[in-house]
């Protein structure tokens, strides 16, 4: 069983460009052993005098309990802000403080099932570990990868190695089908007789996938990405409205209760708001 998260002084093994992304491999002893598909790590930016206090969260692409170096964790990141830029500029042997594994991982089907994995952009990163775990349980795995352009796809070759079928979509048609992942899902659901769809990617994509899944009565699990200050459940910045088994909507933390949720439980339409019927929502006009 996976134990709780650790904080370890990690070390950069390598940083490689992959299309629009940086693939970062970190030596992070103790963490790899605990990783399950869907977990993420929170990386500190800079050293103890850094002005950038908040950790950055990244899905775990791969975790190896011991390679040549000891336990490693790999992430795939898109460099845009100060934190991701700093990480993408690391050199071999630089220090990076790692906290992980964090979050609630994907739930695996008890019995062999037909699983469709949908990744948007770098959102595909956590799906390959998931695919491995599903295959080990005898599941059928089909993969759909979508992105704006070819260089923003990640893991097409990985997917081909592991999946029954791989479908690629790009907004500009630079690779695969021109369009969105949801354009190809209905056909795939029928062809693969999909029981459960797993999705990770931008919020609008997750919403669309959950919608298609519901329409086709396919179970769905989505890994969301909300802005996080702590990643470990103590700050309450990363909440979104989620309906519980009791039918009550609560503002739940995506870093601990998530990032993986059942697709139908997330109130996508209300993300960024507190629905009036949410538990503890302000009553009347006062706030």
């Amino acid at each position, binding site marked *: 069983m996976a134990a709780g998260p650790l904080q370890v002084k990690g070390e950069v093994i390598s940083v490689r460009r992959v299309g629009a992304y940086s693939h970062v491999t970190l030596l992070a002893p103790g963490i790899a052993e605990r990783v399950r598909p869907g977990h993420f790590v929170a990386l500190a930016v800079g050293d103890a005098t850094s002005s*950038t206090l*908040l950790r950055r969260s990244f899905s775990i692409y791969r975790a190896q309990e011991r390679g040549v170096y000891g336990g490693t964790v790999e992430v795939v990141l898109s460099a845009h802000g100060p934190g991701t830029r700093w990480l993408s500029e690391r050199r071999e042997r630089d220090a990076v403080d790692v906290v992980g594994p964090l979050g609630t991982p994907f739930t695996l089907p008890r019995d062999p099932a037909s699983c469709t994995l949908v990744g948007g952009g770098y959102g595909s990163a956590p799906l390959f570990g998931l695919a491995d775990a599903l295959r080990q349980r005898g599941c059928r795995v089909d993969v759909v990868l979508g992105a704006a352009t070819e260089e923003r796809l990640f893991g097409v070759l990985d997917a081909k190695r592991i999946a029954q079928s791989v479908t690629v979509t790009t907004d500009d048609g630079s690779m695969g089908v021109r369009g969105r992942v949801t354009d190809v899902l209905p056909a795939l659901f029928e062809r693969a007789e999909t029981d459960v769809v797993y999705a990770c990617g931008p919020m609008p994509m997750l919403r669309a996938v959950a919608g298609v899944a519901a329409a086709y009565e396919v179970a769905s699990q989505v890994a969301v990405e909300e802005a996080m200050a702590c990643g*470990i459940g*103590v*700050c*309450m*910045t990363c909440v979104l409205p989620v309906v519980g088994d009791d039918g009550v909507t609560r503002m739940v933390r995506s870093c601990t209760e998530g990032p993986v949720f059942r697709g139908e439980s997330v109130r996508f339409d209300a993300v960024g708001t*507190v629905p009036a019927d949410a*538990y*503890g929502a302000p009553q009347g006009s006062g706030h």
Partner: protein
Amino acid sequence: MADLQTSLASAWLPNPLATASGCAAMGRELARFFPLSDLGAVVTKSVMLAPRSGRPTPRMAETPSGMLNSIGLQGSGVDALVEHDLPWLQAAGARTIVSIAGGSIEEYALVAERVNLAPPGSVAAVEVNISCPNVEDRGLVFACDPMAAASAVHAARRALDPSVPVLAKLSPDVTDIVAIARACVGAGADGLTMINTVLGMVIDTDTLRPALAGITGGLSGPAIRPVAVRCVWQVHAALPDVPILGVGGVRTGLDALQLVLAGASAVSVGTVVFNDPTAPVRVLRELDEALDARGFDSLAQAVGYAHRGLEV
């Protein structure tokens, strides 16, 4: 090894390191990183009477050496605290400082009353977070007015078991923090916690809108440490006998030492926990070493030490 024992009024603590309200939830999550019993105290997220959903997201923005937050006191309410969290914290060996909040004087009193129902010995002290808008007075923040601050503190003090010390948590966003401190002590506060966040704002230069759904938010982290040191200094100079729980921007043992030298008997680590989940125990170790290196036999000797010779 310096003697690290300290106390906040009648609350004895084995050491001066605490978490900060809202930066450690109810303790469970941090307990995965270190035993809560290693700390002097755990300060809970502020609780109100009823469950609260908090504000819409975005609730945070990063700023240079700090962050802005606007959580809106999301939580399950005081009853859940008393029933679930306090027994758990007690079992974990933590000394718990319960932070309470209210939207009216009455709510402070009601929340404090419910805290009395906690298991015996599970509440080391109560911190009264007065940085809340008073719904009955045009949303003016209690902490910004000496009378309102005093009323909130008084309501909580009266409702609470007299054996439990009350700390009033002050906002730095005032012209004269000493006046507010005096008012709170006059209203029965046994000690003071300083400081809450500094009111700030970030505008998202992509959306061209306020970055937080709540528009303004509370600035915290090392950026505000000099403000915390100044507030502790001013209040300790004016009220040297009132114990102070110092908070604001502590990242290292030397930061904690600054607050202690300014007059704090104990120190909370807030935002820096987000950077370093084990910061409270690290800061404790560093503070201990710093005291030793400076020849202090005890923490108590260092409290307010920077004032000596400067008293007027």
